[in-house]
């Protein structure tokens, strides 16, 4: 899931203070799970902003709300009318959500980010999040024992550890495991160590962000939906 962290409060305050009516808009999926931007966090942030505004003598109305997900249009619909009554939306969704809502509002109202989108991560225990995937678009985990060298190695090395590996730890931080040490140990256990000796062709990085914004289109699903819509229009049930 996507892991995020609330922006420093002062930074948020600077974004907000010039406006009159602000909605802190939470997203109740990934960023709620990491306690950064769900309904609850939006409520807390709104309360803090109100307290700040009051002390500064600013006449600033701040509300909070939350919806299931900021990355699909249907979830926005019930609150669309309400959202339009504000002059700033402070979104605590991830960057995807901020973009998506800003596109939806098409310049009518500004949408500002309340959190920094950090990484894709797992939740090994409540309140602890670790980055495990970089979303590069060209997965090689079958070659590395299920451990990604692109994000779990500090230097994203593709061909084994660097000289800074130290008793299983990384020279960049002793709290970080050396990914290549883990890879070798894991592959030993899997009995696939010899795979490391196979020569791999140069990696294709065009699937990562280097090749411009990425899209995935599932035609079978899109076609189905388009057909359904057509049917609905024909029977007069459509909008």
């Amino acid at each position, binding site marked *: 899931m996507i892991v995020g962290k609330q922006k420093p409060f002062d930074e948020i305050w600077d974004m907000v203070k010039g406006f009159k009516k602000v909605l802190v808009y939470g997203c109740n999926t990934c960023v709620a799970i990491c306690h950064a931007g769900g309904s*609850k966090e939006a409520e807390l942030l709104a309360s*803090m902003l109100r307290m700040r505004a009051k002390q500064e003598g600013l006449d600033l109305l701040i509300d909070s709300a939350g919806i299931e997900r900021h990355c699909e249009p249907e979830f926005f619909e019930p609150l669309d009318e309400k959202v339009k009554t504000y002059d700033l939306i402070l979104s605590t969704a991830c960057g995807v959500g901020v973009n998506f809502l800003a596109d939806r509002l098409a310049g009518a109202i500004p949408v500002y980010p309340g959190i920094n989108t950090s990484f894709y991560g797992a939740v090994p225990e409540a309140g602890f999040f670790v980055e495990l995937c970089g979303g590069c678009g060209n997965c090689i985990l079958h070659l590395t024992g299920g451990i990604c060298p692109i994000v779990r190695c500090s230097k994203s090395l593709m061909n084994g550890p660097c000289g800074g590996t130290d008793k299983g730890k990384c020279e960049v931080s002793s709290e970080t495991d050396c990914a290549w040490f883990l890879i070798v140990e894991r592959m030993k256990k899997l009995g696939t160590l010899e795979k490391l000796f196979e020569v791999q062709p140069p990696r294709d990085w065009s699937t990562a962000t280097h090749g411009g914004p990425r899209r995935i289109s599932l035609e079978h699903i899109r076609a189905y939906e388009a057909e359904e819509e057509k049917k609905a229009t024909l029977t007069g049930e459509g909008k």
Partner: protein
Amino acid sequence: MADVAEAAEQILVSTVEAPHDTPADWTPNVLAFACHYCAFAAADLAGVMRLSYSPSVKIIRLPCTGKLDHIHILSAFEKGVDGVFAAG
């Protein structure tokens, strides 16, 4: 106990809040969130023992202090309460 008293001494002047005058009609308004089984019972016992203490504290009973939500505390401050403590 001594540590708490010392800590109280140290915060006579707030480094966070701007200096201000205290209006004459102000009295402290404190909210306490108390666990039904521990602190609420202790508050009862204080009464049974007829111990006199500041009337500025009003108690909100919770089934357990684990129930205490961040927003309860922030709301209290937002409404203008001067201090909040949780006891369990």
